[in-house]
């Protein structure tokens, strides 16, 4: 039998290591029962103290007391460590829970599209102007070179305001703002004019009684059709991507001469032809042209002195192309399931 002092040292070493490995309350209890309980290993050693020779008793007794104290300390610190651990574990939340929801608002797709158009044109020096939606015949038609009793007026189904004079209309285009801007400002002029317009058409997936337009006007010395083409094709590339092709083909508007319709290469089929472009490979996006000299005469600009271009596009049309929307009525129903998609 080894001397008792060796046993004490061995037990101390063994128990200290064991205490360091304690990981749960259960394990700690087992430890306590094994070493520190009334029948535990430490108690058993004390029991044997009565059998040792008298002269060794004080020394061994001291060692045993130190052992008990040391193990108790180890045990206590292990216990608080374990408790601490479990406490920390309780405080860690379930990180897989989602964040608390909040409403996310959106600007209407038409406003987003208008903002995009405004961004592109203000970026190349266009200002923004505004005008009335209830307009007089003069600004909506006459000064734009739509003579009374001219078939060009049939191009636009007009709503009239109930009024004895019969000369007030819900504007059929934003072009009247061109006249107002030129009446009130000397050239050079470079503005875009966004706004709401009305057409007296049967409501369908393709047409609504109101729509929004962005009108553009640039008047200065020597403004040419070549510049109009450059400006519009830049716009189309900015809006639809730098690869998009533009095509200008002759058309007719009373307030521009020459006039053009602008098509972009079909963004759905890449120009090969599909249902959406009616198998033509092209999609119409706007009308434009060189300001007709008659219009200049109405606003007292000298057509020999200045020239200009004007263009106008439907925001709905652009948004429908950009987002592949197939029914114009969706814009005005305000179904949140629709609005949240943009």
């Amino acid at each position: 039998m080894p001397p008792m002092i060796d046993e004490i040292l061995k037990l101390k070493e063994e128990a200290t290591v064991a205490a360091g490995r304690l990981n749960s309350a259960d394990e700690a209890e087992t430890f306590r029962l094994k070493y520190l309980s009334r029948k535990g290993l430490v108690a058993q050693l004390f029991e044997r103290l009565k059998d040792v020779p008298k002269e060794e008793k004080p020394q061994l007794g001291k060692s045993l007391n130190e052992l008990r104290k040391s193990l108790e300390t180890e045990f206590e610190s292990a216990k608080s460590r374990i408790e601490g651990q479990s406490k920390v574990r309780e405080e860690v939340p379930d990180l897989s829970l989602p964040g608390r929801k909040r409403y996310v608002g959106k600007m209407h797709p038409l406003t987003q599209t208008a903002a995009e158009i405004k961004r592109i044109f203000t970026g190349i020096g266009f200002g923004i102007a505004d005008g009335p939606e209830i307009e007089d015949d003069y600004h909506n038609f006459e000064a734009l070179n739509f003579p009374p009793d001219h078939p060009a007026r049939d191009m636009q189904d007009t709503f009239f305001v109930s009024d004895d004079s019969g000369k007030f209309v819900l504007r059929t285009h934003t072009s009247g703002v061109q006249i107002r801007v030129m009446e009130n400002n000397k050239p050079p002029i470079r503005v875009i004019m966004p706004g709401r317009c009305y057409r007296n058409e049967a409501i369908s997936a393709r047409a609504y009684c109101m729509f929004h337009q962005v009108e553009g006007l640039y008047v200065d010395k020597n403004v040419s059709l070549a510049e109009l083409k450059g400006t519009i094709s830049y716009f189309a590339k900015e809006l639809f991507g730098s690869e998009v092709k533009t095509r200008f083909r002759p058309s007719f508007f009373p307030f521009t001469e020459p006039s053009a319709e602008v098509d972009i290469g079909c963004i759905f089929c890449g120009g090969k032809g599909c249902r959406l472009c009616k198998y033509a490979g092209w999609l119409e996006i706007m009308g434009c042209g060189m300001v007709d000299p008659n219009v200049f005469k109405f606003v007292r600009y000298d057509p020999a002195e200045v020239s200009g271009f004007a263009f106008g596009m439907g925001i709905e049309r652009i948004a429908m192309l950009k987002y592949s929307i197939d029914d114009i009525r969706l814009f005005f129903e305000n179904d949140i399931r629709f609005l949240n998609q943009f």
Partner: protein
Amino acid sequence: MKISRKWLEQLVDLNGIPDQEIASRLTMLGIEVESYENFSEKYKGFVVGHVLESSRHPNADRLHLCRVDIGGDVKDIVCGAPNVGAGQKVPVGLVGALVPHNQHDPDGNGFELTRAKIRGIESNGMICSAFELGLGDDKSGIMVFDNDAPTGEPLAKYLGLDDTVFEISLTPNRSDCLSHLGVAREIASAFSRKLSAKRPRFHETGDPIAAKVEVAAQDLCPRYSARVVKGIKVGHSPRWLKDALEKAGMRSINNVVDATNYVMLELGQPLHAFDLNLLSKQTIVVRRPNPNETTFTTLDGKERRIAPDMLMICDKEKIVAIAGVMGGMNSEISDGTVDVLIESANFLSTSIRRTAKRLGLSTEASYRFERGVDPDITLTALDRVAGIIEETAGGQVTKGTIDITASKFAAKRIDLHVDQVNRLLGTRLASGEIKRILDSIEIRSEKKSETVLVCSVPTFRVDIEREVDLIEEVARVYGYEKIEEARQTKLVFDTRFDKSDLVDEIRLFLAGAGFNEIVTNSLQPVHVASEESGRYVPVANPISEDMAAMRTSLLPGALSAVSLNLSHGIKDMKLFEAGRVYALSEKKELVGNYSERSPISLVITGFADPVSYDRQLHQYDLFDLKTEIERVLKRLQLDNWDFISYDSSRIYNQSLKLTLNGMDVGVAGRVGDKLLEKFSISQHLFFAELDLLQITSVNTQTKKFRSLPKFPFASIDLSFIVDSNVPVGNMTSSVKGVAGKMFRDISIFDLYTGKGIPEGQKSVAFNVVLGSDDRTLNDEDVAEFINEAETQLGREYSATLRRQKNR
């Protein structure tokens, strides 16, 4: 307008030019081809069949078993049509053919024919109805052709449809292309082909023309030409004539009327045929109606009200036609007509347009006259129609024509400056090139000087009047695609026009605050628009009663949007709209007496936040709406607003008026149940409309920096016990007043009634922040403030200070 390739081929050489090429070149010349259809392609696999036998299907009463000769081969075909019978000549689709329309498909979509077993018997094709072939609406039975239809002939050929029809959409200026001749001219220019110069062939016989024409209203009728054909026999038109008209979308009537329509479609000149013997004294008088002539019965049997300034075609006694619009019953060509007078006239376009508009009657003739017809083609058209009538209705063309003109119709002469062309187009075209371009569209030009061309515009181009019109022609024919794009290089230094939009900023702000933007119709029913104000703007010609007035408020549109979303089960909503409202103003406005405002509306309804795992759900209330409004106002750097309760029980249950510097700038409230009911909304809804323009006009000063506070603020909590009915808003103002210059901020951090507070009273707890620009506030300052606040609120509201704390 429908243009037939075969017809064009009689006018211009199209040899070797594919349809696709014609369509795209015309489109690029401004003659937009919307679509085109090649009928030989469409009817590939369809032939004329001869039904040899027809017997009942053994397994189905309604079906027939037919043996059909398709030319050299006999097919067994099961047919369900009730009218099928042996001996008939019928259209047969063979296996592989594409049937244009399916009678049993609700959308009428087509399908490919396959070999099929029908009730146990194999069918190798299909006998078709007019509907299935896209040749009419008749679904009741199969088409049956004349007995002489050649068995086995391709269907398109038999129907005269071995042709391509181009659907052309013309802008109002290009009236010259409302005819095959006009389109042929464009093609001749595009492909450098020559127009064929065939002259109409006919024989003049017998006595010189005896009929007379008197033009009394020459201001409205620059030219009136006429011919007479005698001894004709009115009857059916020959196949070629019927087919040509049908392809162009017109119905065949009789050989005389068809001939006039044919010439109109070919040359663009509207013609009218009168029964000469129904014209009193065989005389035409072109005049305005007499005062006693107020009605006239047109060809379509309708009695029309006529006005004194409309132009009439009359005989010596009565009106026989409304000039340029429609003829009358009283001189119509009938089966008994023997002698005809053909009118080939030119009328003033504005007069015809006014008349057609007022009568609500648009015809092929009026459509062309409104847009302008070549005044120099009347005689050519008469010769052409005379030739066709002679061929199809027999008779003798009387010698000579009547031709009454106001003036000579010579080519217009316009100077074209080469530098103007290049200035406007941004090109560098030489005068020789411009001349060549104009030549190709029959505009001849001579050099007046090195830089000026004198151009002669042919009479058929009624749209070209000015130099700029010629420049457009140069651009169009030269090709827009060939004009180089120029990038704008000039910078602008222009401060007159805004570049940014405050409304857009507020939109972004509100979207960031969780609001969805809506865009609603500005047209409403009158009863809705008048709900808010009697001074609404009515629409004279609304699409429907639902859209007969301009909106006076953004509320109804918002309620419709909420209602729609509720119907989809979405109950919690934050919406806003920035749009205009319209009103009749008492004073003169920019346009008439119509005023337009641009408010912003806010709508909240349902739960203030979406459902979440540990969140107390809170139903929106009026204070949430105030929160949102106040946030917008703060965003706009405003601070001295006020909410004042006011009664507007027609629309709101509880409502507030927003004022700014004493100006009314908005309303907010809980929308009344009665109004909500109309929109099927059964939950509380809070709505505000803010006049953004007025609000922003208050804050026009630019933002200025104020130096940051140098001395710490004092924060004091004060709670008062006061009668329950004392408005906290008033107490707040009083506390602010007491703080005076030291005031920095105030919040209400507790409101309490119940245990510990006497019945009928409440506890209101304020946190007040005080400060000074030049020193740190000391205990005395704070104590003095508390004292004064206690005295002031005690005096004004009998409030007692319950607790105070210096934070």
